[in-house]
């Protein structure tokens, strides 16, 4: 195994350290912004009971303690997953987050399953014709895909489908789900439908998943196109490609087993980082398509001034980034025989 326990432990500690930084940052935002931190933490309550809610928030934040203890107290709250009750949902923040995470991940996975292979293939095609007009067109296409505002693309896809008589709204038809007795188990509806052998729901969920997934896929497609083009074109100039050609290895094999193979670790690395950032794109597109997910939480956090939910999202997104990047590094070590971690 090219992986050592030592590396994983180090990586985990580092991730925790970065998360601590993220939590401290969010605390700084709460206490340094104008206004009473306790009022903000309580979600600007109004009416009777407001005073009590603010007092409660003050106690939760430990605002009477010295600053460093406040921060420690806050850290403990966040990192033990006990952020208290979301004002918007009247449920524990972490329960709300975990419930909505699967929907967003489902969308993200679908988008990357489309975008990464498609982009990589086009990139190889461009690399094989480097400098030619096809290459120029493909590269411009890659840049255009990566320069498309995702929310706008999502709206365009939605409008076109709606005009064509297919409103790709939400995650699944409620009527259909009720009629067929569909239960959400994992939160990944496609998987749930498969587990329950519920074909109608499966295809309905798939049909509603693909359009937003296409919108989210624009960025990874463009990115992978440009990256695989650059990496494959570089690899095609390597000595070992020359040698393989001289030994009579077929073009197809040289392109895929030699040049593309050499591009893989870099692709995995960059696609990994992009995957973490595309979480945001997925959230925005969810909003456009009216899907329940993290994107919905973002909106409710604003609508209800739900600071707890916002901090929860902040930490979740950062944790996702760290986890995905660790996984990308591990994956890279597994596919590049020269890397040992």
């Amino acid at each position: 195994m090219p992986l050592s326990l030592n590396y994983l432990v180090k990586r985990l500690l580092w991730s925790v350290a970065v998360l601590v930084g993220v939590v401290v940052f969010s605390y700084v935002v709460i206490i340094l912004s104008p206004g009473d931190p306790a009022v903000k933490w309580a979600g600007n309550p109004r009416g009777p009971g407001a005073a009590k809610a603010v007092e409660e928030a003050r106690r939760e934040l430990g605002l009477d303690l010295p600053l460093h203890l406040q921060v420690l107290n806050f850290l403990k709250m966040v990192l033990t997953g006990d952020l208290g009750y979301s004002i918007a949902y009247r449920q524990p923040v972490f329960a709300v987050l975990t419930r909505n995470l699967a929907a967003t991940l489902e969308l993200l996975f679908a988008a990357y399953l489309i975008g990464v292979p498609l982009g990589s293939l086009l990139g190889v095609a461009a690399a094989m014709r480097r400098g030619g007009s096809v290459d120029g067109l493909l590269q411009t296409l890659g840049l255009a895909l990566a320069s498309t505002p995702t929310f706008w693309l999502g709206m365009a896809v939605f409008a076109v489908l709606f005009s064509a008589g297919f409103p790709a709204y939400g995650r699944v038809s409620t009527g259909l789900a009720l009629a067929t007795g569909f239960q959400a188990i994992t939160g990944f509806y496609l998987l749930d439908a498969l587990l329950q052998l519920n074909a109608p729901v499966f295809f309905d969920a798939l049909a509603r998943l693909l359009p937003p997934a296409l919108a989210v896929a624009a960025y990874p497609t463009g990115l992978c196109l440009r990256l695989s083009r650059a990496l494959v074109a570089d690899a095609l100039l390597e000595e070992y490609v020359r040698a393989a050609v001289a030994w009579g290895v077929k073009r197809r094999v040289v392109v895929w087993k030699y040049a593309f193979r050499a591009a893989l670790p870099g692709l995995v690395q960059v696609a990994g980082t992009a995957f973490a950032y595309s979480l945001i794109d997925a959230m925005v597109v969810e909003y456009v398509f009216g899907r329940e997910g993290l994107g919905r939480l973002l909106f409710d956090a604003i609508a209800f001034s739900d600071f707890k939910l916002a901090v929860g999202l902040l930490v979740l997104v950062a944790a996702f980034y760290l986890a995905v990047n660790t996984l990308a590094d591990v994956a890279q070590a597994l596919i590049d025989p020269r890397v040992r971690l």
Partner: protein
Amino acid sequence: MVLAVEAKELSVGYEESDELLWAVREVSFEVREGEAFCIVGESGSGKSTVASAIAGILPPHGVTDGELRVGGRVVVRGNERDYEGVRGRLVTYVPQSPGASLNPYLEIGDQFYYVLSSLYGLSRREAVEKARAYLRMAGLEPDAVLDRYPHELSGGMQQRAAIALALSTGARILVADEPTSSLDAHLRLQIVELLKRLRAEAGLTLIFITHDMLLAGALSERVAVMYAGRLVELGPTREVLRKPLHPYTSMLIESVPVLGVKRPLKAYTGEPPSPGEPSGGCPFYERCPFRLEVCASENPPAKEVGESRRVACWLF
């Protein structure tokens, strides 16, 4: 007499950002079947470019002129190149730096598999079976190599593996481009001995590129000397070494120590002209101790001297 390689007025250049630099100019030579042929020259003389042209691996920004035949097939005519059915079948190649020339992402066994399946459609098992024989021939223990990645092998083992891969193609013409330059001294001799033995055993045509006159003497039957992209002298190695005709060849010979012969080593000053420089005259003009007036303005054509020798110098 069957010719393994025949170059007629072969020129090779590279397109570098807007300009075209000729690395090899109007080179003509023949290599006979079964012969050991050396091309000697300093770095920048164009010798590696000639090797690439023969092996069919000129880079994509390469430009050619003249004609080149390999194994009777025309592979270069003008700026047209066609190595289909030549690479790996008629001609094979031992690379300069084995570390960079083996695919770092594939086990050695897989690299044999891809070569042999491309050429002969062998399955993985058949390919590995064949690979064992070639690895043994190259002096490697197959089991210690086949399921290793290149970076897990030492430099000497990498070069032996590369030679085994080159041989496994079954091509009868072997182009070796300074295969020893990246190795330690003691390994160098081993590799040279190995190539010599393999050539004798398999009856290969060996085209060996080197900057080392001594090595050329030890290995080859005929030698071509290149300078600044031009072929300046060609002939049987023994005769060339004993009585060089071109002043540059003399310089090369006099600047290497010969075991058992006591004589002062001469160091010649100056540098070869860079490939971009336009020169009407002999490229060696600046450094030549015997230069004539004509040398400055006109490039000397190749001249037959005796039965088997050729030299491009106005002195003859």
